[in-house]
């Protein structure tokens, strides 16, 4: 393999009385070098981590014992998002959970934007309530949605039993296991 071709193509005819230096070809068989090069490339491609992971900030409020100390939310500005099974999202405006509507992660953005535009920015509060069936991805996605739509005030809160029951009924009606 690794042979060096010497004096193959070169040698011109010697004329009478003229002495020419013997031309040596300088071509080198580079196949093994290329083989090795690509072997290393593949090795580095497989071991490399190109996209550095990023970090998402999450600030949780301290637990408050007294009801009176908790922040109040104006009814007109409240928008509750609940995360259910199978990546389904439920939401309602105001304080009445029976006004529950169903959405997906694709359609919830439009609803958030609509609510943001129709509400006084100072009153707008998004309340996120993941159920026990929600995955971590769902939670991060919805928190991300807050960043994407630049919602300044949002909170992650435990779901109330009443709301969870409502979701279960809705899920049963829609046939979501």
């Amino acid at each position, binding site marked *: 393999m690794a042979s060096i071709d010497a004096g193959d193509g070169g040698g011109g005819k010697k004329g009478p009385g003229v002495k020419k230096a013997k031309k040596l070809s300088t*071509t080198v068989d*580079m*196949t093994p*070098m*290329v083989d090795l*090069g*690509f072997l*290393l*490339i593949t090795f*580095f*491609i497989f*071991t*490399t*981590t*190109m*996209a*550095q*992971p*990023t*970090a*998402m*900030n*999450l*600030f*949780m*409020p*301290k*637990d408050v014992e007294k009801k009176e100390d908790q922040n109040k939310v104006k009814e007109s500005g409240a928008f509750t998002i609940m*995360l259910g099974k199978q990546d389904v999202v439920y939401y309602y405006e105001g304080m009445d959970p029976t006004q529950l509507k169903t959405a997906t992660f694709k359609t919830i*953005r439009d609803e958030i*934007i609509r609510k943001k535009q129709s509400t006084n920015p100072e009153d707008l509060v998004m309340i996120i309530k*993941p*159920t*026990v*069936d*929600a*995955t*971590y*991805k*769902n*939670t*991060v*996605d919805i*928190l*991300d949605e807050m*960043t*994407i*739509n*630049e919602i300044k005030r949002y909170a992650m809160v*435990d779901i109330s039993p009443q709301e969870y029951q409502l979701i279960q009924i809705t899920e049963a009606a829609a046939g979501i296991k």
Partner: protein
Amino acid sequence: MPSVKIKKHAPTNDMTPFVDVAFLILSFFMLATKFKPEEPVEVTTPNSVSSTTLPEKDAFMVSVDKGGRVFVQVDNPEFRQILIQNLNQTRNLGLTPAEMKSFINAPSIGVPFNQLKGLLAMDQDLAKKVQQPGVPCADSTGGELYFWIRDALSAYSGRKLNLLIKADNDAKYPVFKNILDAFKKNDQNKFLLVTSPEDAPIGSSLYETRQNQIKSGK
């Protein structure tokens, strides 16, 4: 008329440019590469638009895999030593110095306290193959994770410790909530969630803001 002689050539072609490119790519990868740190579990993180880079130093990481097993990881070996000494005292683990040393070399731990001694006593190569059940943090008391966090905080006493949570896409929310509760019990309310980067969707309000920032030269 002599017949035309066709010169026989070996079918060689000049590979120099090819080699040039190959080695260019090779050197790029060699310089750009950063080896993946050894991880006991495979965790696929969700995407987020967040652009904050992950702090590499002073990190206390809690990882959750698909099945909801919880692992703890401390990056700094110095503090790992203080942490294990603290834990050994507060939890009466009865570890030998050799076992503590093996903790300092261990990438991450995912066993209950009563199995910790057994895991650390094992040979390192063997220990890697062990299926670790995860640190218990079953309910809102924070379980054993609470003690891990408490002792890690005291080991860091005063210095800023970055609290990282790295969970798998398919991990269930309750596990995540339990971890948050364990942190909250230690009066820790600021976390960093490890995610993969993603662009802001075109047309969204964050996208507009970022575009404006670019235009204004910031």
